[in-house]
């Protein structure tokens, strides 16, 4: 599904990604783990086209997307739920969801019923302003908004951050369900090890802007030394 080679990128201040190589298989959840500042968010932003690629390549669903702009990448089936959710607080829940479809031609502007079915909480609150939702509900909204475009790959940046455990549980079940039912691929950046172990099939570890290891999630569960090594737990 996603194939990254020798990816180098960064901000004006300096290089953050130093030759990242990563493969994300279709229909599975791949977790990306690492300490703060190692380049996790930068990688997701670069994949989504928000940051320019200095070197290397990104192939998605068989095509080279290295030089594409964010909206073009979105049209190809990649969706992004950033850290901090970034929902449109002044707009209603319905408008937030609708924004996920506006990139498409006129005829496809409605919110898919399947999404509303999966998120009954949001379906009840369509006319509420998004800013009035709780943190957990906003996270659900952010995910729903990303799913509205029926993506093939979902990039999730720390979905559990600052959310109460019950909602984290709900998110985990929801995502597992969608992956199983629709074959959605997910690249999950997370610090919450429990969530990772529940949801992910395998784990990539990033350090100093490079992916330095891959381990299946069973291995990670069995051997605490792995997490200790990369997350300094």
């Amino acid at each position: 599904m996603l194939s990254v080679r020798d990816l180098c990128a960064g901000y004006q201040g300096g290089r953050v990604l130093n030759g990242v190589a990563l493969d994300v298989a279709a229909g599975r959840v791949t977790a990306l783990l690492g300490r703060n500042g190692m380049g996790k968010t930068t990688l997701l932003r670069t994949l989504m086209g928000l940051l320019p690629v200095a070197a290397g390549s990104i192939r998605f669903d068989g095509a080279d997307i290295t030089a594409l702009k964010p909206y073009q990448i979105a049209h190809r089936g990649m969706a992004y739920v950033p850290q901090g959710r970034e929902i449109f607080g002044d707009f209603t829940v319905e408008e937030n969801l609708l924004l996920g479809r506006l990139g498409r031609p006129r005829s496809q502007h409605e919110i898919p019923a399947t999404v509303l079915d999966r998120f009954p909480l949001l379906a009840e609150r369509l006319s509420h302003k998004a800013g009035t939702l709780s943190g957990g509900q906003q996270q659900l909204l952010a995910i729903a908004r990303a799913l509205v475009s029926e993506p093939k790959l979902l990039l999730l940046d720390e979905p559990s951050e600052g959310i109460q455990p019950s909602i984290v549980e709900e998110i985990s079940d929801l995502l597992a369900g969608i992956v199983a039912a629709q074959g959605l691929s997910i690249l999950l950046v997370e610090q919450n090890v429990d969530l990772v172990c529940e949801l992910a099939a395998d784990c990539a570890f990033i350090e100093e802007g490079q992916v330095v290891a891959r381990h299946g999630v069973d291995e990670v569960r069995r051997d605490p030394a792995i997490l200790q090594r990369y997350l300094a737990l």
Partner: protein
Amino acid sequence: MGLEQILILALDASNFILAIVLVAMGLVIIFGLMNVINMAHGELFLLGAYTVVLVEGLGGHFWLGLLLAPIVVGLIGLVLEELVIRHVYHRFLDTILATWGLSIAIKQAVVIAFGPASHTVSMPLPYGIELFELTYPVYRLFIMAVALLVILATFLIFFRSRFGLAARGVIANRDMAACLGINTRRLDRLTFAYGAALAGLAGAVMSPIMSVDPQMGLGFLVPAFLSILVGGAGHLAGTLVGASVIGGADTLAANLWSPVVAQIVVFVMAIVVIRLFPRGIVGRWMRR
């Protein structure tokens, strides 16, 4: 001051205010969406007026000119955006300079094409209407009607249409909107063209009651900018409030004293308001 004089003053002020709003709305939308301060906006106003001059010069009717002006200026806006503005998006202060350069170039192009002297445009509705005991020009009422319609239409597009929702999304969070698949490039182009068309329409509709000369752009650019700053750059409604304050004060002061004094009074008042409410009047009100 008698009742009639107050009424005339109020009507004249409304006239001026609504014209400023037409110009300022385009500026605010372009700024909100693209983070571009279009210093050439006054020249787009100018081009609208000169479109009418050109049409009349070729034997056409004023109404044709009025119809063509927003289309012509909208297209010119598209060209400007494509050729110049999109190259300097990422350098905010430089967009100001680049558009300033455009303003100089456009103004001079107009001087070359039409000469530096002023032109007159025919008065299409040269009648007055009886209001109480005075006669007020019908055309001025027409200007206000057009302005109100266009303002209403803009609000509807912005707040009730899918396109408007996408635009507001981009204004709220450009990166996120792009990640959601909204074609920000196309939106930029359309928005700039729309803002330009608004200015062109304003220029065309005002042309019969103004002296159409190459300097007329600045006379509307400055009040438009001040209105935006006073009202608040973050909200479309702010433009209405700001224009009312600026336009109203200017008309009143010009009437009480003189146009020169009015300009100074308005300017001082504007910077005092901005100093007190850096986010503008509406911005301050929204914070509560």
